[in-house]
């Protein structure tokens, strides 16, 4: 009976941790999380692998952990990719209806879409995802294409996510070396949105911000379309690094300080308060730093990050359309007060995300830092089913193209 439900494994190679989510999906598309394996990540900076040796060890540890916890054997997986090299943009492709009777055929739409994809990418870049935003026939949007419409011109609006092929291949090769097949690379941001947004959230429109260790991904999804997405190579590491530089601490102490005393908000009450740095096991007088400085450094970095996202989202769309609001996830979403800061900046309701419409260990699902791995596995499930909820008119060839 298990043979009918394929095992879905999502692997996220993050800057601070490597996380493998194992789940399965029943025939109704309901996803069940079986378990999560994780390991500390030592060879990744800003979302990109800088030390293959260590990263390979860490991947092995994370997958081993997942196998141990779930009692399954991982043979293939979906790999999440991120990093500065990932770029996202909206593209429009046009195609004139060539037939004499001006009847728009499926081929016309496909041609318009391929025109939209025929964009000049940087060399060695490859397209990761193209997501259909909308189809217009003579300027009028058609929601769900059914043949029989007449028109002169077909427009396909796509959201294109592309990245450096070598870097993606590097991670794929690392997993290949462990005799595990990579089904398909998935952009982390896209996967995260699938894990935490309910169909209602998607319909209303939602901005998902995943602040990880070294990168921050954001996806603005509305209906089935991705309105905007992107990556900034700024994450929790940067916050720690800022603290380390600003307060002249070691990175480890800065990290501890961030976790124990950090906040995204600076309120008047903390003025003049000082906190002790690190563990006092060396017998030396512990150093004390100003709590206000700590929080100011953190707050200004997080604010800047949100500002960058806001700028990008304001290109061509309005954030007001995200009626469901902003969903924060990733390890840095645990910083106290971060949702208040986000709400102030984005002017829409904000919440710390947890994985909905997924069954499994509730404690695990509530953790915002596992959302990406779970999302990758879930995204894999959608792919395997061959019917993505995002893009109903996606053709089979589009999907098969990924199974190279």
């Amino acid at each position, binding site marked *: 009976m298990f043979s009918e439900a394929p095992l879905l494994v999502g692997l996220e190679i993050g800057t601070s941790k490597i996380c493998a989510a194992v789940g399965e999906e029943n025939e109704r598309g309901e996803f069940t999380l079986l378990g999560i394996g994780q390991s500390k990540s030592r060879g990744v*900076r800003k979302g990109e692998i800088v030390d293959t040796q260590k990263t390979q060890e860490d991947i092995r540890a994370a997958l081993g952990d997942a196998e141990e916890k779930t009692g399954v054997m991982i043979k293939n997986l979906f790999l999440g990719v991120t990093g500065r090299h990932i770029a996202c943009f909206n593209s429009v492709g046009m195609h004139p209806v060539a037939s004499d009777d001006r009847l728009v055929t499926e081929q016309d739409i496909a041609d318009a879409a391929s025109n939209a994809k025929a964009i000049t990418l940087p060399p060695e870049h490859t397209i990761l995802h193209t997501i259909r935003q909308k189809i217009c026939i003579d300027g009028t949007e058609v929601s769900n294409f059914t043949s029989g419409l007449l028109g002169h011109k077909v427009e396909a609006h796509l959201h294109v996510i592309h990245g450096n092929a070598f870097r993606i291949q590097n991670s794929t090769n690392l997993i290949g070396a462990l005799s595990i097949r990579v089904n398909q690379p998935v952009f982390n941001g896209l996967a995260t949105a699938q894990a935490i947004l309910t169909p209602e959230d998607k319909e209303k429109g939602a901005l998902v911000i995943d602040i990880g260790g070294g990168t921050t991904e954001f996806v603005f999804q509305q209906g089935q379309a991705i309105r905007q997405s992107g990556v900034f190579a700024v994450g929790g590491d940067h916050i720690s690094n*800022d603290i380390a*530089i*600003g307060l002249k601490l070691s990175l480890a102490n800065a990290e501890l300080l961030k976790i124990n005393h950090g906040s995204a908000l600076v309120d008047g009450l903390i003025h003049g308060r000082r906190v002790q740095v690190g563990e006092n096991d060396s017998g030396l007088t512990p150093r004390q730093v100003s709590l206000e400085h700590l929080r*100011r450094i953190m707050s200004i970095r997080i604010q*800047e990050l949100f500002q960058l996202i806001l700028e990008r989202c304001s290109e061509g769309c309005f954030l007001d359309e995200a009626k469901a609001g902003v969903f924060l996830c990733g390890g840095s979403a645990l910083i106290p007060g971060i949702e208040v800061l986000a709400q102030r900046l984005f002017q829409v309701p904000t919440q710390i995300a947890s994985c909905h419409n997924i069954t499994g260990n509730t404690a695990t699902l509530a953790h915002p830092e596992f959302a990406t791995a779970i999302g990758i596995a879930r995204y894999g499930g959608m792919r395997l089913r061959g019917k993505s909820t995002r893009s109903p008119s996606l053709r089979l060839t589009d999907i098969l193209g990924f199974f190279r």
Partner: protein
Amino acid sequence: MNTTKSPDSAPIRFIAVGTAGARILAEFNQTSPTGFPSAHADTDPDSLRNSPLTRHILLGFSINHGLGAGGDPDIGRLSAESDLPGLRDFLAGARIVFVLAGLGGGTGSGAAPVVARIARESGALVLAIATTPLAFERRRIAFASEAIEQLKAAADAVLTVSNQRVRRMHDDKTHPHELYKFTNSLLVHTLQGLWRFLNAPGLIQLDFSHVQRLLRGRHCESAFAAVQAFGSERAHLAANLLLNHPFLDTGTALATAGQVLLSVAGGDDLQIGEVEQLIEELQTACPKAEFIVGASTDPSLTGHLHVTAIAAHSWQSSLNTPLQLATKIASRLDNPSSHPKTIDKTPSTDTGEIFNSTEANSSPPSSSRLVPTAPELSIEQRQRVLVSQKNRITRRKPDSQMLMNLDIAPLGRFDNTEKNRHKGIDLDVPTYLRHGLVLN
């Protein structure tokens, strides 16, 4: 004052160059007779005739024919150069020489650097103490600042009092004499402080070698002040006075100083606790400064506390002017292991003399196989060559003052990673630095 040390063990000489210097020295001798020889060197015989000092050195009678320097530092300098034997006679064997001069005139500005040079050449530690003119004396200001540069090159330490600064401490109705008197008394107090520091029997006695170690080979522009206080709270009062003294930039000069010479003098009732309290208070206010303290007693000061502070706030090479640079380079060529004495060529605007020195110094390199010897030139040609060389060195000056660009933002953990540029800004640089957030 008791001079416990015999003149032979620490032979100190005072030499005043010009009338202004003589006045200060006379006042100093009156208030605290040292017993050490002091002399008045001047270009003007009339001035020497009226001199309050007993030992006179007439400079450059063959040059100025007894008419003085006439406000021209060049004549002052040439006069001194022409009577080097007289100066050497007086300065021979000294270990510390105080050179006192009022800068701005012909004798003070011209001859004082020469005297300092001769003193240093005789192996002494040279402390030049000088006053600078008021701001409205434009021409004299220029002479004085040139003389200070030269003094810095020649002497081990230069202490200057700006009359303009003293002027700012007085109102418009002050009589000029009062102004100069104040300046003089300040210098006298400082001299006394230094003197006690070196010589008087003390609670905390510092050796001559301490001062030498501190000052020798370094050229410091120093800020200094002398204060006195009495009463039961005198230590606290003196510390406060020092920390708010206008000559120490109301204390900032002390706070930024690397080393501070502190001479504390009191009567027989001076207590070690007071000295402690004073140092404690100063050290608290100026945590960076290293205080070198000498404390001494003088029965005539009973009930009083005299404190003299000299803050050495900029240790820097005195070789700032291009000419000095040239002479230094020249002397290096001459003698690779340049002994301090050999670099003390008096910088001069007199082209003939410079030429002589450069000619003398350029001979060793020209004996090299690769460098041809200099061609024979007429005097006119020599001057032209010299002027062009001077200009060349002047143009090169900014190079020798290059500062390293330290405007590099720290990246910490992301130091060796790919640049993280977004619209021209580097996101790896801490945001608070880019936004100029001040963490005090």
